């Protein structure tokens, strides 16, 4: 199996998960249409970058800008690692954000309820 194909096989699920995740967030009205479009564009750009790696490498090799004519296994793992970290960081940020908001709401409601109870 070529390393280019391996790169696509490893990364396509992450990109698809990112795209579906953004769509679900939008459809469940957790994010606005602009945020959904922005996130979708970012994931498509990443996917475009992955697809374009081999043609870019070939172009640079033919023009004597680089010596390597194909990716090493390390390159494949490195790119996959970066995209995986991006995917996880985005997920973690969304979860932390949501948790923070819930804690704030809980604190607010609890403060009001306890003060009302104290007044009675």
């Amino acid at each position, binding site marked *: 199996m070529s390393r280019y194909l391996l790169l696509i096989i490893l990364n396509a699920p992450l990109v698809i998960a990112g795209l579906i995740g953004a769509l679900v967030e939008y459809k469940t009205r957790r*994010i*606005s249409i*602009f*945020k*959904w*479009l*922005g*996130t979708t564009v970012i994931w498509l750009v990443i996917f475009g970058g992955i697809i374009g790696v081999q043609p870019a490498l070939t172009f640079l090799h033919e023009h004597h800008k680089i010596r390597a004519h194909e990716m090493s296994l390390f390159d494949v793992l490195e790119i996959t690692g970066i995209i995986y970290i991006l995917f996880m960081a985005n997920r973690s*940020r969304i979860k932390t*954000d949501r948790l*923070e*908001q819930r804690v*704030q709401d809980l*604190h*607010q*409601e*609890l*403060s*009001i309820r*306890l*003060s009302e109870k*104290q*007044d009675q």
Partner: protein
Amino acid sequence: MMKQQKLRVALILPAYNEAAVVGDVIKNLHKVFASSAYDASIILVDDGSVDGTARVAEQAGANVIRHILNTGSGGATATGLAYAREQGFTLAATLDADGQHDPHDVLKGLDEQLSTSADLLIGSRLMGDSTEHMSLVRRFLNRSASLVTFVLFGVNVTDSQSGLRIFSKNALENLRWRTTGYEFCSEMLWRARQANLVVTEYPIKTIYTDHSISKPNGQSSWNAFNIVKTLIRQRIVELFSE
């Protein structure tokens, strides 16, 4: 003749360690609003004070909500507005608990809100000739904060950091923000724009007392950098959320 029913107004004071002055602030508000056309309730949100602010406020006649944890000015204001919403107030006003605002300016703002039907009315310390009591540094920082608010969020106001704000019923129902510190002042304007609320300003007096200037936890000049940092972060995180 049927007696006209007064409008129910919530006067919200977010407070943190303001025991020294909050009693007088509440008494002044009671005095001014007793003869007004509004049925005003003073709600003090004690943001985890350790100097007996809540006790002093209660003795002065305010309804007190005690925060279990210290969250910051934005969190305390949000709690006060959530309470006003739950209690079905028609209008709400927020003002600083350290005596920075003249109660007559609150009254003026409420009248202005009724005549203009604005959803969010900001008492601006930088409109008209009321800036003479403000130091040059504060004036510069306040104008800079308004510029940052415009650049990041596209909301053009003269005093984005003012604590005196009037909220319509519509704003009470629809306005939410996420930050809990002083940066909520700018974020609130952004959220108001996102919720299609009408935001306007009116001039108020600038009152800097010895107490408000000497506060260690107040909106100090250096804190401005933290505010800007948090706002930039918030804008980047929500880059596409317009």
